[in-house]
């Protein structure tokens, strides 16, 4: 144990000597955690629409007014020709355009039906389909309001049919605020980035600078060396996690619903797995650049597949299986469960098994892969 103590002493000195690294470890994640959740918002609002009104009648004006006042759309142009409206889409100023043809009012009153052309910028598929949906809803509403107007003018009555009333409630986050979903996820990603990158760079740095020779000629055992590298960064990770939780509470008012010791238990196991992964990359690489690129490669894949950006359930079968093979996916899921829904140990115990498995596997690989003789 005394040997381990000396290694730890050395590692801590190295960490605290480099002020830039210290800043990168603590300041950057804190700042990013404060800022990023405000920016990460999938919600689509304010769809910019331009209108070409060839008809210029009472009905067409009413329709435009209805669209503009629906709350979903922002009228960015009332142009005179199709080409002008298209130009707005090309310049990215409008997301969609509505074309009201000549004789719109006349056809509607005489023949009872009229087509309208809507063109949407479909490069952003989500936006175009949501915008199309909103616009269709506004039009349907407009249709029925016309219908009621005419019918009540004719003295006709509106049929009452059996209605299924749908009530809905959103549990755990009644106002559907985005920050609840985003903040815990971003905290996990930041922790992952720091832990993964810093450990990936660590052993290879000693190789590149040449100081690894000095360790290789000492009687330090392989597991002692890996453990000596692991523990300091594990402590750093736990501190970053704690700072993250505090930021989460102070800035966003999110306090974990579930038990905090349980949260830390998961964080502790996850960090061991993650750092083991970083160290494995480090023992495997020949230069810091290489280690960084390999780490970046895997981090990128893990992050994209983790369910932070898009839901894991929606992925095709092979991707879902792959996603479950990465520790990040499990940890994000667990942190969201415990922080937002207050899940207890019983409900998340399988995840703990997964994470422990990763921790054991990755660290054994790191120990085995570290060679004192080259």
């Amino acid at each position: 144990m005394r040997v381990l103590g000396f290694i730890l002493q050395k590692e801590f000195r190295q960490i605290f000597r480099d002020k830039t690294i210290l800043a990168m470890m603590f300041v950057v994640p804190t700042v990013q955690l404060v800022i990023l959740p405000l920016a990460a918002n999938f919600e689509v609002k304010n769809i910019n629409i331009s209108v070409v009104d060839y008809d210029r009648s009472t009905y067409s004006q009413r329709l435009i007014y209805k669209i503009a006042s629906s709350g979903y759309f922002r009228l960015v142009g009332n142009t005179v020709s199709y080409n002008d409206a298209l130009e707005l889409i090309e310049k990215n100023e409008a997301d969609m355009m509505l074309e009201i043809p000549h004789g719109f009012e006349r056809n509607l009153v005489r023949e009872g039906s009229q087509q309208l052309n809507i063109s949407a910028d479909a490069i952003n598929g989500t936006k175009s389909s949501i915008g199309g949906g909103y616009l269709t809803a506004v039009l349907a509403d407009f249709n029925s309001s016309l219908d009621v107007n005419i019918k009540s003018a004719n003295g006709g009555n509106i049929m009452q049919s059996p209605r299924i009333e749908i009530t809905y409630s959103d549990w755990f986050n009644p106002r559907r605020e985005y920050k609840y979903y985003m903040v815990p996820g971003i905290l996990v990603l930041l922790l992952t980035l720091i832990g993964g990158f810093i450990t990936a760079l660590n052993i290879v740095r000693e190789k590149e600078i040449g100081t690894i020779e000095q360790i290789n000629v000492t009687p330090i055992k392989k597991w002692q060396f890996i453990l000596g590298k692991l523990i300091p960064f594990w402590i750093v990770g736990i501190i970053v996690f704690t700072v993250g939780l505090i930021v989460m509470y102070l800035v966003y008012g999110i306090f974990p619903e579930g038990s905090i010791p349980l949260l830390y238990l998961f964080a502790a196991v996850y960090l061991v797995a993650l750092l083991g992964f970083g160290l494995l990359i480090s023992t495997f690489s020949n230069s810091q650049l290489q280690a960084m690129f390999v780490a970046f490669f895997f981090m990128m894949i893990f992050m994209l597949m983790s369910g932070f950006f898009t839901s894991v359930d929606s992925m095709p079968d092979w991707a879902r299986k792959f996603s479950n093979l990465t520790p990040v996916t499990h940890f994000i899921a667990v942190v969201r469960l415990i922080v937002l829904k207050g899940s207890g140990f019983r409900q998340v115990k399988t995840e703990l098994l997964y994470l422990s498995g990763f921790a054991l596997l990755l660290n054994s690989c790191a120990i085995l892969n570290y060679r004192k003789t080259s």
Partner: protein
Amino acid sequence: MKQLPAFIRKEFYHVFRDKRTLLILFGLPVVQIILFGYALSNEVKNIGITILDNAHDNNSEQIINRIKTSSYFLVKDPVLKYSDIEEKFKEGSIKCALVFPPDFTGELGHSGNAQIQIITDGSDPNTATIVVNYLTAIISGYQQQLKPAPRLSYQIIPQIRQLYNEEQNGSVNFIPGVIALIFMIVCTALTSVSVVREKELGTMEILLVSPLKPILVLIAKVVPYLVLSIVNFIIILTLSVYLLDVQIKGNLVLIFAESILFIITCLSLGLLISNVTNSQQTAMLISMMGMMLPTILFTGFMFPIENMPWIFRAISHVIPSRYYFIIIKAVMLKGLGFRYIWQETLILAGMAIFLLTIALKNFKIRLS
């Protein structure tokens, strides 16, 4: 000038010696294209749902059947008690629950007004919104079938046309973003170590005593990465066209010119980082860890920039990838000409010159 080719050759040797980094460099875009093309989408499918059917009658079962046949939902085992729903939510196995009242059919028949309750997992607001929309559509569909609404006597029929992307190919939106992201991070990280590595390994001294001017030293550092990035860009374009069926509508020459401009901007940023840092570790942490999330967020391909608070919209203006994303979208996907993107091009060029000047200013020709 005779020395410059020799220096460039030296840098090429450095790059090509490290096979693993090269592999990652070219593997990264391939993997990303595959992930974005096939695994990731904003569509929400396979939503776990549980049903508490207190009614167990014909109407409730027909609605449940409709949900079962919809590809959006994955109906899990039904629950028997209201309190079980919370347990399922806490396990994370479901995203929503549907509750039928005990006398569903009776209420529907007598008072003409029956209630169904949808409970969603609000901790994932995006899915919650979509779930409510899907379920409402399914239930109103059933209601229509029970009693078809009379045809409205006035109808406006919308004809929706999807511009630029008629097949609604989801990859189309991601490709420009992925290209921007890869260059922004890979190019910056590669160059960010180039100078500081020589400082750390002690070979800087040899470079400094050579008769080459500082600017030429930096140019020699950048050239190999520029070449590699262009090769990488060709790979990405080829994959997007042949694997993901993305159509390139604009002028290829313009696309390449703009891409090279963007690559140069990123390389200059990397050089600047390399000149102001003292260790490879710091340089890489700044260029990768520090820039990864801001680039993903502020480029505009994942989260719409116009929804952000004004301060972030302001920040996004200093992120080069944001402009490149706009340019590549306009030229590659919409087929527009230079007239539409000259402003963005000018900004990128300005950034490149600015970064390069600062990098040069910070290139210390004395070791101390």
